[in-house]
């Protein structure tokens, strides 16, 4: 029986690493990678707390989180691609004009 605290520690570690990736990396796709890591960290908590729940509410919630993550990732990649095609940059620091 794995104690619930260990799940929380794993989830917190993934969340901190994801946040640091978002801040440190300059490439837009790496920022998206950090967001996916944070969503996975949240999902670990949901699944861990639903372990002893006969109604499986947490697992249902985590399935919805996965679906939302897919939609978000697809739209974000489309936006990154369109921005690259217009301005030829994929570094978020160099994006200084928003007059499409």
């Amino acid at each position, binding site marked *: 029986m794995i104690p619930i*605290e260990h799940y929380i520690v794993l989830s917190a570690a993934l969340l901190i690493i994801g946040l*640091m990736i978002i801040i*440190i990396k300059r490439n837009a796709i*790496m920022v998206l990678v950090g967001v996916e890591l944070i969503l996975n960290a949240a999902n670990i908590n949901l699944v861990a707390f639903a372990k002893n729940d006969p109604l499986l509410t947490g697992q249902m919630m985590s399935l919805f989180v996965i679906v*939302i993550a897919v939609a978000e990732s697809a739209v974000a990649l489309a936006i990154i*691609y369109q921005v690259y095609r217009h301005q030829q940059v994929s570094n978020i620091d160099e994006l200084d004009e928003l007059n499409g």
Partner: protein
Amino acid sequence: MEQINFNILAFYGFAGLAVISALMILMSKNIIHSVFMLVLVFLSVAAIYIITNAEFVGVTQIMVYIGGILILMMFGVMLTNRIDGGKMLTEHRRIIPAVLLGLGLAFVFYSTLQTKFPLAEFGPQSELDKSVTETIGINFMTHQLVALELTAVLLLMALIGAAFLAGSKFEDKK
């Protein structure tokens, strides 16, 4: 007894693999290496779901993340970088604020975990009368039906929106 020991061993192995792969994403400057390390993180998290009595979520994680999002991300990397035979590198910036923020957040979580966590005391594991996948299917079709339909509409919107954004040529007004 043997089964339980193997489960606990697998949990710590996969948890360590996930954290080490995530740290390698953080350290590595090569974008391709980072995306492949993300495969390892997602696989380890899927294994942890399966250990934690959530087989359906684990299989969904493998199918959706590794089959869908990672392929999308590889396409995104290939399309938004100049392919000239060299390595695709990303630079690092603001390392000191990020490390400080990470340490601060770690301290906040650590001090929270020092107190007795009120939800930590679960009773013995209650036996499901149906399998996990069966319960999830019944829940989707009864209690969560509205949310399921809304999710379907949202996915359709995201599909159309992504196709429109990536496919259309906007007029250049300059």
